[in-house]
């Protein structure tokens, strides 16, 4: 029996729990499914394009690379499904409330903390947004990276948390993070409540998707997609899996929410048009 093979990046030990659980559930629902773990998204995208796996649970940056590589090779990749929580995220630029920095212009000559070099939400997208507002990273302000989990495209929350801590410690003047992490860091006390102010928020963008290669067996892929979309938070059997993966419902994949990231990749030269890694000092 043919098996649908999925790639996932091991950004945390719980990834094994998650995909083992999904594997059992898919199997119980008639889909032969297995998964392969990669230590970084670059290896996973290359494996997808080389046909080692049929589908990849991709970060938005991995999607950006996958479709560039696919186009360069004259093949297709498609976004099959995504989480409800992957839709319409924003990133924010945060300063200390007492800093006197009232707006983005106030960042000129300052130190701005970001996450890992490959984090869409804590580095690439907010920096692109600052560029669009006339602030060139490294020229108009100093950039302070927090390189945690490089190669995992910001899945590891550590880089954003370190950036937040640097802001509290006063070693930087501003920090970039995803909106939900600003809420989390404030609620958990990493950012003392009321001590920070959001001075900018990016437009909404999308996050992860299941990226399928054109070579994926169509019937298996459709079975996979329909099972995902049929998972209900009402079902006590699947609820723990959904909780672990951070969603309430799966949605059809869409690629309309990646324009900001594509622009960021181009501006920063992270990948070239063929999907080659072009970022200097990026060692996944």
């Amino acid at each position, binding site marked *: 029996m043919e098996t649908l093979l999925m790639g996932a990046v091991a950004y945390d030990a719980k990834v094994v729990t998650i995909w083992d659980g999904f594997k059992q559930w898919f199997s119980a629902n008639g889909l032969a499914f297995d998964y392969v773990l990669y230590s970084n998204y670059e290896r996973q995208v290359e494996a997808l394009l080389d046909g080692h796996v049929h589908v990849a649970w991709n970060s938005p940056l991995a999607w950006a690379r996958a479709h560039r590589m696919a186009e360069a090779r004259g093949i297709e990749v498609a976004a099959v499904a995504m989480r*409800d929580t992957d*839709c*319409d995220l924003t990133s924010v630029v945060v300063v200390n409330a007492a800093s006197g920095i009232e707006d983005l212009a106030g960042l000129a000559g300052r130190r701005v903390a970001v996450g890992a070099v490959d984090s869409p939400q804590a580095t690439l997208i907010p920096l692109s947004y600052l560029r669009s507002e006339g602030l060139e990273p490294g020229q108009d302000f100093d950039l302070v990276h927090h390189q945690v989990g490089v190669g995992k495209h910001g899945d590891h929350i550590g880089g954003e948390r370190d950036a937040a801590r640097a802001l509290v410690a006063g070693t930087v003047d501003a920090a970039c993070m995803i909106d*939900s992490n600003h809420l989390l860091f*404030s609620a958990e006390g990493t950012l003392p409540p009321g001590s920070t102010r959001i001075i900018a928020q990016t437009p909404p963008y999308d996050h992860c998707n299941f990226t399928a290669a054109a070579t994926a067996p169509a019937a298996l892929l459709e079975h996979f997609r329909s099972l995902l979309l049929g998972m209900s938070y009402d079902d006590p059997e699947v609820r723990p899996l959904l909780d672990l993966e951070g969603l*309430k419902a799966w949605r059809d994949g869409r690629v309309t929410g990646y324009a900001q990231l594509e622009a960021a990749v181009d501006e920063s030269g992270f990948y070239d048009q063929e999907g080659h890694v072009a970022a200097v000092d990026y060692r996944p």
Partner: protein
Amino acid sequence: MSPPSITDLDELGLDQGGHLLLHRAVSRAAPGQVVEVRGRAPQLRVHLAAWCRSEGHEVEMAEGPGPVAGWIRPGPATGARWHGAERSGPELAERAPTRWGLAARGATVEAGGVEFPFPLNDRAAVWTDAAPAIYRQAAAAQWDPATAVDWNAPVELDDDVEAAIVQVMTYLVENENAALAVPARFLGRIHPHFREVVAVLAVQVADEARHVEVFTRRAELGGRPLGLSTVGGQASLLTLLEEPDFAVAHFLLSVLGEGTFLHLLSFLERHAPDPVTARVCHLALADEARHVAFGMAHLAAVLEADPGLRPRLAAAIHQRHDALAQTAGLNREVFDALVVLAAGSWAPAALGDGFRRVQELSVEMDEGRRRRLVKLGYHPEEAAALSSLHTRNFM
């Protein structure tokens, strides 16, 4: 369609507990009803969008300044966690499902939980209506070894009598170790739904720990090393520890073993040559009487539900007797020590009295066992036969 419900967070941020108000408003919203969110916290709009995303709600953000931050349309996952949840009480279940796990009896248990390894989950196998009252008694009767015994009371005994006391205390500690280990082995296997039963056994374990302490302290009071531990005595106790069935183990330990010990401890209190020995035996006796009462109540309840258990319990006595047939039973040193203790001296006439008293003790023990067996529904003749097969090691 209902008009929007309005939730005003005032100045409270979602990073400061404001999510409680949103949770409450969303959970109370009628089907299809929108929740209008108002508030003045500076980051409310950013956080509201992030919160709704993580909770699976749709949100429409308000444009421009003003008190309204946005409108929440509760998602289908709202309250879904509690679909299919079960109430685990408050009345006792005939069989407590292992999926209820460690939940408080009466709690609402989310569906889909893991199965817990509580194989003793049948009410008929573990429960007795006497458990709550016995637990209350047990909790109220706890005593502190440091203050319940006057450890400075004068203990100036003849060397030989002191040696007999040390030997008896050594034997008691060994037996109390068994009486601690047996309920402890079952404690973690009984479903917490039957919490009063678990509580009685937990206190019983703590009781035995105190007995081990006070008997050890009494043994050491005269500065002598502890006494002898024999192969036969330990073999007898091992059969208790190895019994896998809760009802059988409880029967052998509490009804027969601890039941027999009531007479022994009473005998020791009565004939103790010093106030410390008398006191520690008195304290242990009160606890052991409670353990026996619980054992009797539990076995009576189990036998009522399953009369077929009666011959199995009898068979267990036979089996234990056969297993111990090749062992010495009560060690000579303990028997002799009891005689010396009851005699109070090595004078021939006193020893004769002591010997007679120990013989009377054996008769009392046998009568007590027979009485308890008859109370559990055995014919007096069968009770007499079974009592005679009880281990010579007493416990």
